[in-house]
């Protein structure tokens, strides 16, 4: 009993000392006021997704170079429009958060045929070393979850049926850690207001051989382009894939219904959907 009290007393003393030091120390230090101010606005999660050692490190970098906020923004901060305004005021510039706010999109619809049984280490990087993965399409998501492990928001899960990674856009904050992790480079950061996602990463143009790789990939038929009544789809001739004009899209979902291999998916977040409904 006495011993427990002694240990508790030491702990309490340590706490009190830290607190007194924190209070007594001069809070206004030359050259650090602005950094402290910025650090207090930043989320303080110290996730390190921005590439700096914690939020204080990012605040220091921001003091040196205010433009950094648009070049490599803090993804967590961008979720809160009020905070963005605050940091913009502190930096003396207006920041358009809707353009910077991103979401991760997995460019694969799954269902690609499995060509051999993979029984190695359960990580995508290892599986990708073996004939470029165990799926028929060389660009397919392997679904072993390297991105799931790295996601600080727990926004990514593996769809058990299609065996691909699926990003929950309500949770995702677009930090981009999964983009770096994917050995197949399937994940891309797209604007958070995106309504329709193109879920196929099939690259070469008019490659019939490639068509045979996956029965569920884009066949470059342009049906989506033709079906759109609002001119919201632009056909990218170089890659032969559709591109979406977010402003014009009304979420009529015609393109999704028309698409023969079902590679288009409605990804709009609730917030965006509500806006369209109004």
């Amino acid at each position, binding site marked *: 009993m006495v*011993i427990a009290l002694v240990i508790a007393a*030491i702990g309490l003393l*340590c706490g009190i000392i*830290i607190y007194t030091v924190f209070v007594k120390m001069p809070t206004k*230090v030359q050259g650090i006021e602005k950094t402290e101010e910025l650090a207090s606005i930043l989320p303080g999660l110290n996730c390190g997704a921005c590439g700096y050692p914690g939020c204080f*490190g990012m605040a220091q970098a921001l003091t040196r170079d205010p433009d950094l906020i648009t070049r490599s923004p803090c993804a967590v901060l961008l979720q809160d429009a009020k905070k963005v305004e605050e940091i913009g005021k502190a930096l003396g510039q207006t920041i358009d958060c809707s353009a910077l706010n991103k979401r991760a999109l997995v460019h694969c619809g799954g269902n690609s045929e499995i060509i051999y049984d993979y029984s190695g280490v359960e990580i995508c990087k290892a599986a990708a070393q073996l004939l470029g993965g165990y799926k028929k399409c060389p660009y397919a998501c392997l679904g072993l979850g390297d991105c799931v492990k790295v996601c600080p928001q727990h926004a990514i899960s593996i769809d058990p049926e299609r065996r691909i990674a699926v990003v929950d856009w309500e949770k995702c904050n677009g930090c981009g850690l999964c983009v770096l992790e994917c050995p197949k480079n399937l994940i891309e950061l797209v604007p958070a207001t995106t309504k329709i996602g193109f879920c196929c990463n099939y690259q070469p143009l008019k490659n019939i051989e490639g068509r045979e790789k996956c029965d569920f990939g884009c066949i470059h038929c342009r049906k989506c382009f033709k079906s759109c009544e609002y001119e919201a789809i632009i056909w990218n001739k170089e890659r032969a894939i559709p591109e979406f004009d977010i402003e014009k899209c009304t979420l009529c979902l015609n393109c999704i219904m028309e698409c023969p291999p079902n590679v288009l998916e409605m990804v709009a977040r609730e917030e965006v959907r509500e806006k369209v409904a109004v």
Partner: protein
Amino acid sequence: MSNLITIFISLAIINNFIVARFLGLCPFFGVSKRLRDAISMGAAVTFVMLIASVATWVITHYILIPLDVLYMRIVVYILVIATLVQIVELTIKRTNLTLYNAFGIYLPLITTNCAILGITLINFREGYSFIESVVAALGGGFGFAFILTVMSGIREKLELADCPKVMKGLPVAIFVAMLLGLTFFGFGGIV
């Protein structure tokens, strides 16, 4: 005096924390990629070792031994070291920003490093006096910084070396660490 020199040399070279006691191996591989980082890390470790030794010596001899709670020393040591490092970090941050940037992330990182806890436990086990434990901490810190500097120097050259693709990076670093350990093994038995 000769006793103090013996302790210093023993902890710095013969019973070196990294190559002989295998403590603090994570910074050994983690922070030994660049010479500059290695030097700041070494300085930070030496500094924390020093303050940790002083504080734990006082606590051991004036609180733990009179109250006969020595078996709780690991818990108390961790608590005290963590507090000290927090205080030092706070003080440096608010008073000298240049120094804070030089230490960077390393100061809070080594709060719970095993080399730091190791030096305090070794001080106690060997029954060092106050002066002796200060010298031991300096020796341990010097040895740590020395090995880290040597390793980072080698690794900077290794980056450019033509080694097989499978061995590039960490694997070859581990081989170098083995050779470094064997070299220091030669000092065994001097003191």
